[in-house]
């Protein structure tokens, strides 16, 4: 039994959610039963991913099999096209998979209040989880694409059916943006498949594709745009605030915590590992985009009146650090970028959960509509302070380390860009503190004289994240150690190809 | 100059064909349009027959002509039946008045 689990651990992690979802569809329509069973179903992959974490060999690196990839499972799927169920993790995907499986049970907790179409909701949610983990673990490009697209459908419904007042617009906007990106990706994937001899979707083999530079650059740009829509990088970001604001709390958490990372993950996995030489040439371009994201996102966040919109724009800003770190092509920068992906996943999830808590009570999210909440809901305020301080990068909390690493790495290559980006830290501090001041401090808004403090369920959903924020802030080694060899490998690949 | 050549037959049938085309496009009356279709079919049959006559293309073309004529008759029968049904409903046979269904 244990051996079986050990040998098929990734398959299990990926497919247990969707199978569980199907089971839920056939359960009797009792709300608590469905909630509890979803929670249990999401806890299974989480447990398994802890096993994955424990068994992960931190010393190997490389993008090949046999070689740097671990827990590899490889089954033939469609023979005619050489499509395989080819799964495996390395230092890049391991933290992401961990983040994803960890956030899902918390999101189930955050969705406790859903009562309309509850079966459908949890089925779609679990389908979404399968898709997300699938993207991070897939080593077959076709599987990668399928998983990428499979998330569209549940997202569309989750935002569209269970979202806020403007949900129809937000849902279709999200769908169209992502579909544009993914169809462009599809064309490139097919092209790469056809240029490989023999035709293959195996990502490790496609990484060795020898092709003309012009063609590679074109592929790189198209793929980059496809991923950039998901991140979202500046000109393609407009779907994000709408989707975030309209989505139910748990879905915002997933969006910010996992989906955005899929964009940068895709860039690292595909653009960086498969086209290192093009990446080397394009790094400046990525750095500029990162800088724009940081500054633009921060300024937009500052101007927001809606708390959720503010957090959404802060995500754009924080993802800018990831881009900047990636562009630096130094080990510090890349480590910082990957760590920032994980950290932002934790912090953004926390922030959205907190927004959800306040929205459940006040039924609005206008920042100006509150005041002095700290005095009536002290526990809530403390956790919120923690989250906002983490977001602004207070030393001792997790984001500080990753942002510092990013800036440190990037400064070695792009002095001006990094200097400009660093001002983003100040703007971020400004809007975070200002938000804290407006909501939690100051004169108590009489309307909220009776403001129920955070309850046990909400507390449990926030607690693990809070602990991570503090622990990783002091001791980032558990995550850093996972990615270091792989990051070094990527960096050598790219800098090596550039010479 | 020889007049009774393949080319002269082709041009006669081309004229028939194009008149038919013109009739189909410009007419509003269903029967008028249908006459255009008949002209086109007639010109195709003529074409087949002329090709079959000249330059050793065999009699297969004439077989095709016969089939075109037969099919034209069958189509005419269906057209008449449908025409009666349409007429019954709207008391007129302008194709433009088939306007419950807009394009």
């Amino acid at each position, binding site marked *: 039994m244990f051996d079986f689990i050990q040998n098929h651990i990734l398959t299990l992690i990926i497919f247990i959610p969707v199978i569980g979802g199907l089971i839920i569809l056939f359960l009797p329509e009792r709300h608590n039963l469905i909630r509890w069973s979803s929670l249990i179903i999401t806890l299974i992959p989480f447990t398994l991913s802890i096993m994955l974490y424990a068994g992960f060999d931190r010393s190997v690196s490389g993008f090949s099999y046999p070689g740097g990839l671990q827990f590899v499972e490889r089954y033939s799927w469609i023979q005619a096209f050489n499509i395989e169920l080819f799964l495996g993790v390395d230092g890049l995907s391991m933290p992401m998979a961990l983040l994803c499986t960890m956030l899902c049970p918390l999101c189930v907790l955050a969705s406790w209040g859903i009562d309309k179409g509850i079966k459908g909701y949890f089925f779609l949610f679990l389908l979404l989880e399968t898709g997300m983990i699938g993207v991070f673990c897939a080593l077959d490009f076709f599987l990668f694409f399928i998983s990428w697209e499979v998330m569209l459908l549940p997202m569309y419904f989750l935002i569209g059916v269970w979202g806020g007042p403007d949900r129809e617009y937000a849902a279709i906007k999200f769908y169209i943006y992502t579909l544009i990106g993914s169809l462009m990706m599809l064309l490139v994937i097919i092209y790469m498949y056809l240029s490989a001899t023999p035709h293959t979707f195996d990502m490790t083999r496609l990484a060795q594709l020898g092709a003309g530079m012009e063609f590679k650059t074109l592929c790189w740009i198209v793929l980059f745009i496809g991923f950039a829509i998901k991140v979202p990088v500046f000109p393609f970001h407009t779907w994000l605030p709408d989707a975030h604001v309209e989505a139910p709390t748990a879905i915002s958490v997933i969006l910010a915590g996992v989906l955005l990372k899929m964009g940068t993950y895709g860039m690292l996995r595909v653009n960086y590992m498969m086209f290192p030489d093009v990446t080397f040439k394009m790094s400046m371009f990525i750095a500029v985009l990162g800088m724009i994201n940081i500054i633009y996102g921060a300024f937009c966040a500052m101007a927001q009146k809606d708390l959720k919109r503010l957090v959404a724009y802060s995500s754009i800003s924080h993802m800018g650090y990831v881009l900047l770190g990636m562009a630096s092509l130094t080990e510090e920068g890349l480590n910082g970028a990957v760590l920032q992906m994980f950290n932002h996943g934790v912090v953004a999830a926390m922030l959205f959960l907190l927004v959800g808590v306040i929205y459940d009570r006040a039924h609005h999210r206008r920042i100006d509509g509150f005041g002095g909440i700290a005095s009536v809901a002290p526990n809530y305020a403390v956790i919120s302070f923690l989250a906002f301080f983490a977001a602004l990068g207070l030393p001792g909390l997790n984001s500080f380390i990753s942002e510092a690493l990013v800036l440190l790495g990037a400064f070695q290559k792009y002095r001006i860009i990094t200097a400009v980006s660093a001002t983003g830290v100040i703007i971020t501090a400004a809007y975070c503190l200002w938000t804290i001041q407006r909501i939690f401090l100051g004169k108590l808004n009489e309307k909220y004289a009776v403001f129920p403090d955070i309850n046990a369920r909400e507390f449990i959903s926030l607690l693990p994240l809070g602990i991570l924020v503090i622990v990783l802030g002091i001791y980032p080694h558990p995550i850093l150690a996972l990615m270091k060899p792989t990051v070094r490998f990527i960096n050598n690949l790219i800098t090596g190809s550039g010479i | 100059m020889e*007049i*009774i050549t*393949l*080319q002269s*037959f082709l041009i*006669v049938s*081309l*004229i*028939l064909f*194009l*008149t038919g085309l*013109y*009739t189909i*496009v*410009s*007419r*509003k009356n269903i*029967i*008028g349009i*249908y*006459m*255009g279709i*008949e*002209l086109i079919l*007639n010109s195709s*049959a*003529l074409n087949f*027959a*002329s090709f079959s*006559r000249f*330059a*050793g*293309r*065999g*009699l297969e073309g*004439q*077989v095709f*002509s*016969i089939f075109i*004529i*037969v*099919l*034209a*008759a*069958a189509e*005419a*029968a*269906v*057209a*008449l*039946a*449908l*025409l*009666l*049904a349409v*007429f*019954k409903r709207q008391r007129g*046979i*302008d194709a*433009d008045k088939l306007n419950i269904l807009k394009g």
Partner: protein
Amino acid sequence: MNIEIKEIVFISIVLLTIAPCSVVAFSRNILYSAFALFFTFIGTSGLYFFLDADFLAIVQLAVYIGGVLVLLLFAILLTKNIDDIKKTNTISLRRSITAGITVLVLFFSLFFVFLSTGWTPLNGGAAYPNGTIHELGRLILSKYLLPFEIASLLLLAVLIGSLVLAGKTVRQRED
């Protein structure tokens, strides 16, 4: 001398075929159009005689004039009061202009293509049989037997379908 008469007859038959076409296309009276069509069909039949396609000429007379045209006349008379006829065979001006331009362009391009194409003799320019009926019968009962049989099935289907479609109208009138 003989040849000249043949050519004159040919030209007049061509005119008999083509000239009524303009009536079909432009007349405002649908009955005139129908009668013009009658002449076109007769003219085509004459052209078949010139093509030595005797059987085809007879089929043309029998089926087209005896069948199709009669059906058309039926259609006209069943669906129109005679008074209306003069006004109703109208032409859409906008569409006729586009149609006219297309047709003219097509005419000139196809005209030159037809003249310039060689139409190479095939089968070593094999001689045309004297009297086609025998040969046609052989073809239809050997190589083209299947289409022949299928055509009969098609006619059966059309017969039944038309009966239902037309019968529906009749029945509704009775109701």
